[in-house]
């Protein structure tokens, strides 16, 4: 107890976040196990975890590093395809599900981080709008390449092609693992809700610890003022790359989770395209840019809400778009900020409501 009291304010906040995630997950898990959840909702449990991780990963890039990436679905795509490919390849070689999944996870995350690093190396020299459009470009390239990639296996080993199954030149006993636009079919369903929640917590711990470390403060200094940060000796390239690669790696976790929850993994513009990247951005903006806990709950809520509000389905995207614009205007426009200050000041002046003031 004493230790708990001594804890700094930020770590207290972090533990509150973890506890909240655990409580929500526990309630959802119990509801699912006792059959109090519709099959539609219980089918959403793992995707919710994947999107939460993705939102936290993007928030690290947008909120903490301060660089807008609209290609994060691409990193998710890398993680998903690499891990699903591995799992399918090793389905008979490694029969134990958790060992296979762990290896697939390591591989998927490793590849996403590598791609993130390779993309970040040249791209992070650019600023603002240019960086956004280049991340978009990379995301689209990854998605397009994944949609035309053919990989087959026979006794001679692996064969790769960007054309069709014929050009793989497989022997008669050969097996096509990735079938271009049809993607990977028959990935073992190794992920479940418990794994999802664990991965969400791991992601949160990684990000929170990074933010509160020396490196994290350097990253935020770069966000706040690049020239000032450089002049006090912060290695801009290094810290930008660290944050960007970690963000990509975390998106890879989401991809691995996502891929192992599906029978068929395809690369379409719906799941790994530009629209998905925007969707994640909506989660981040609604949860609050730079607010990790906000991202978690905004993502979870926005994935589940449409299923609860089926009657609004046609208007859902329209409403999201309006909310995105209104939230941005309300939080960033100088006139809106001035207005909020004024309201706040008035609120403070009324004597009986001084305690109600929310920070």
């Amino acid at each position: 107890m004493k230790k708990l009291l001594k804890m700094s304010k930020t770590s207290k906040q972090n533990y509150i976040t973890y506890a909240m995630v655990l409580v929500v997950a526990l309630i959802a898990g119990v509801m699912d196990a006792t059959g109090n959840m519709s099959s539609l909702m219980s089918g959403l449990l793992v995707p919710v975890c994947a999107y939460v991780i993705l939102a936290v990963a993007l928030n690290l890039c947008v909120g903490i590093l301060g660089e807008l990436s609209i290609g994060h679905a691409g990193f998710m795509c890398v993680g998903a395809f690499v891990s699903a490919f591995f799992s399918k390849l090793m389905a008979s070689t490694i029969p134990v599900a958790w060992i296979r999944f762990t290896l697939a996870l390591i591989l998927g995350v490793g590849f996403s981080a590598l791609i993130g690093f390779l993309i970040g190396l040249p791209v992070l020299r650019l600023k603002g709008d240019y960086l956004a459009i280049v991340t978009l470009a990379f995301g689209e390239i990854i998605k397009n390449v994944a949609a035309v990639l053919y990989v087959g296996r026979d006794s001679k080993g692996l064969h790769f092609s960007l054309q069709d199954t014929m050009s793989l030149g497989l022997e008669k006993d050969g097996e096509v693992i990735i079938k271009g636009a049809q993607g990977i079919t028959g990935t073992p369903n190794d992920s479940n809700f418990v794994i999802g929640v664990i991965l969400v917590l791991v992601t949160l711990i990684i990000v929170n610890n990074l933010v509160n470390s020396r490196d994290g403060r350097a990253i935020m200094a770069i966000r706040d003022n690049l020239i000032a940060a450089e002049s006090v000796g912060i290695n801009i390239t290094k810290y930008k790359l660290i944050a960007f690669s970690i963000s990509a790696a975390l998106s890879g976790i989401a991809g691995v989770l996502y891929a192992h929850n599906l029978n068929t993994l395809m690369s379409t513009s719906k799941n790994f395209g530009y629209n998905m990247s925007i969707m994640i951005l909506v989660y981040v903006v609604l949860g609050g840019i730079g607010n990790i806990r906000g991202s978690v709950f905004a993502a979870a809520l926005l994935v589940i809400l449409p299923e609860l509000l089926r009657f609004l389905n046609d208007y859902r995207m329209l409403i999201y778009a309006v909310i995105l614009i209104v939230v941005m205007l309300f939080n960033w426009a100088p006139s809106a900020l001035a207005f909020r200050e004024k309201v706040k000041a008035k609120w403070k002046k009324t004597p009986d409501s001084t305690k109600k003031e929310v920070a």
Partner: protein
Amino acid sequence: MQFLSYFINGISLGSIYAIIALGYTMVYGIAKMLNFAHGDIIMVGGYIIYVAVATLGLAPLPSIVIAVVLCTLLGILVEKVAYKPLRNAGSSLAVLITAIGVSYLLQNAALLIFGSSTKAFTSVVTVPAIHLFDGQVVISGEVVVTVITCFIIMGALVLFINKTKAGQAMLAVSEDKGAAQLMGINVNATISLTFAIGSGLAAIAGALLCSAYPTLTPYTGSMPGIKAFVAAVFGGIGSVPGALIGGIILGIIEILSKAYISSKLSDAIVFGILIVVLLVKPTGILGKNIQEKV
């Protein structure tokens, strides 16, 4: 001969990109923002013409005029409501995300009104095709009109910017907003004018794009919009002739890579070029290099 006809198609597509890129490049030059919703204004223009021709039974030319007027108004409205309040915001991210929101809004509004089904767009061009080399190379009327329109617009715009007071005001605002204001230039009106011109051009681009590729969906504008931005960056953002050069080169590359490499990878190739350009010469072919100061 095959190559020649691909090449001509490339120039035609490139001309459309160039017209769209003009909107990006002018807005970027003046407001220093990437107007993500620009591509979707093309789509709105396409739908307005579709409704005017197919439902109201108007002739092509008046429908295009209606589309240009409505898109111009839409552009001004978007600027006033969504972008202007954020002009002095602390972070440039804010206006970029808002622009993405506007783009999303336009797409989903169109989806709600017109549905996701593809609409068959009747070409607004009535010029007959030109047959060369005994019919081995056919240049369609759309291609002829597109290329001519593009060059007329370019010429008119260069004259407008260099010879008129409003055009000079645009140049001044893009150079230094504060100084321009001190010289008595109405900065807000100038920015609105830029958005108006860009959006009007987007409507024309929409008419040409939908005539050349006669399908119309709520997402028609987004990919050409992004590619036109690539063209604008390629030519040097902020430069009018740069948009023309960048657009045409990009159009040719896209059509040739579609024809000779892979139709599925042509988008990837176009984006690959953007990345290479930004890394080798971030200011583009005709752009100016501006050093950031404290």
